[in-house]
């Protein structure tokens, strides 16, 4: 190895006359400085990592609070753990190009991959017992971008902030009978969700469900103007209300069986994607607050679900439907939830991919 160096001793090494040995005081001062630099850096690192902040809300804590009393279902998502894959198309009609320059809104057909699911952390939950149903969706465009979104069927979210969501989970999981009343007192917006949960009709099929983004996002059009929006998938299959008692008679997995049979026998299912634009001053940062009626609403296309596949060997299994994976022309708003969800989903994905042997794929691809 060639050394780039100035004149040196003949054997290629250098020496210099060093100052006389350091005084003890100098030595001690130096060691203290070294200790302070190293120790201070380590403390700063530990603080950044959260090790010194027991109150910080970390993705770990969220996942812990989500875990069912019976324990997590290894290999499965830490929430919305029970689900079934679908593939199909998104047929954009071009109407939304005025709101967003994302290619996914230019008229055309784009491959869609998704997952119908239940809002529970228990992968073995009985379908009739879970109030919230959801859809994960990924639309891919020829420019190489992806739009990932994860929506649920309530018209608004139970709480206003991620911290409140954590408190809700703790209260729900608490054995203390005062836990929920205390939570509701501190988070009065929950009452509206509780009323929806109690009174809104249940349906017997994923095909009849609305799926709503709840979180707002910013669409940027080709002129550079921003629009705060929320979107919904409105079912083209008419919802038929069925009581939860009747649903319970249909078997623990009736939703997955029903959607599989329905697509096989009646063909593709459709949802109309509707984008609603906020007026200035509308609460874009609070998904527990619906926007007032009459807001500008644009039908931007149709989701066509063409094929259903079981999750175990299905294409949706190893996709993290992180709602912050967005194409150019869509970005996050001041709504704090997408970031919190992205953080939690990241950890859930890391954990479940490490547990793949606990949720083995069937070699032949045939559902067990």
């Amino acid at each position, binding site marked *: 190895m*060639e050394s780039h160096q100035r004149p040196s001793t003949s054997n290629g090494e250098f020496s210099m006359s060093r100052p006389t040995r350091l005084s003890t005081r100098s030595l001690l001062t*130096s060691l203290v400085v070294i200790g302070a630099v*190293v120790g201070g*850096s380590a403390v700063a690192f530990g603080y950044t990592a959260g090790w010194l902040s027991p109150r*910080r809300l970390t993705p770990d804590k969220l996942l812990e609070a989500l875990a069912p009393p019976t324990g997590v279902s290894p290999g499965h998502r830490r929430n919305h753990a029970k689900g079934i894959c679908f593939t199909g198309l998104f047929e954009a009609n071009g109407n939304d190009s005025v709101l967003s320059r994302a290619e996914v809104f230019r008229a055309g057909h784009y491959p869609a991959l998704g997952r119908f699911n239940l809002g529970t952390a228990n992968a073995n939950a009985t379908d009739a017992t879970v109030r919230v149903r959801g859809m994960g969706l990924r639309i891919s465009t020829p420019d190489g971008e992806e739009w990932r979104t994860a929506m649920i069927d309530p018209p608004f979210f139970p709480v206003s902030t991620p911290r409140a969501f954590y408190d809700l989970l703790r209260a729900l999981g608490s054995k203390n009978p005062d836990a929920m009343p205390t939570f509701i007192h501190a988070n009065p917006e929950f009452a509206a969700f509780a009323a929806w949960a109690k009174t809104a009709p249940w349906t017997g099929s994923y095909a009849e469900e609305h799926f709503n983004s709840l979180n707002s996002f910013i669409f940027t059009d080709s002129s550079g103007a921003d629009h705060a929006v929320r979107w919904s998938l409105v079912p083209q299959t008419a919802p038929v209300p069925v009581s939860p008692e009747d649903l319970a008679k249909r078997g623990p997995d009736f939703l997955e069986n029903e959607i599989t049979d329905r697509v096989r026998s009646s063909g593709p299912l459709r949802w109309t994607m509707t984008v609603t634009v906020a007026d200035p001053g509308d609460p874009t940062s609070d998904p527990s607050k619906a926007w007032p009626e009459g807001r500008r609403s644009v039908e931007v296309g149709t989701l066509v679900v063409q094929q259903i596949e079981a999750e175990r060997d299905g294409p949706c299994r190893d996709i993290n439907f992180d709602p912050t994976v967005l194409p150019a022309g869509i970005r996050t708003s001041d709504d704090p939830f997408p970031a919190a969800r992205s953080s939690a989903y990241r950890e859930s*994905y*890391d954990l479940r991919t490490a547990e793949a042997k606990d949720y083995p794929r069937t070699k032949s691809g045939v559902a067990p």
Partner: protein
Amino acid sequence: MIAISRFTAIQRLLHWLMAICLIAMLFIGVGMVSTVMPKYLPLVAVHKSLGVTILLLALIRLVVRLYYGAPPLPVDLPVPMKLAAQSSHYALYTLMIAMPLLGWGMLSAGAYPIEIYGGIRLPAVLHQSDALHTALWDAHFYLAFAFFALVLLHVAAALFHALVRRDGVFETIAPSLTSRH
């Protein structure tokens, strides 16, 4: 006093520039995985962009190091210290190149689109795979802590040379605004 050799200007520039970037990366990395606040998103975005930048700088730095070499260590430095110095530098180079590659691989194996600097898309270098994602994630995570420990050791040793041994080693890498030779 015989004139001491030092690292070339480009080597010194790369060292200090990358020191800032690498320390920032370690803090951003450990901070971003411990938060659900809105800052999570820009922290991750910076982490990915800076990671790729560090990879490019590290490869340039490796070429520069192979070309120019390094000034010799003091003749009176004990052999165990010499070995520790050399092996720690091998380890630092290995980590600064391996870590971004592990990150890139991990995202590829997780079927995540990889975007840096708000618009540049990087191709997936691996197919989706639970096993690979897990292995690469674990490697990236645990090696990050090893990297931080090594950085602390490196800083402690540097200060030891500068303040206690006072043997000119620190001066070989120290930035200087005027040419002293």
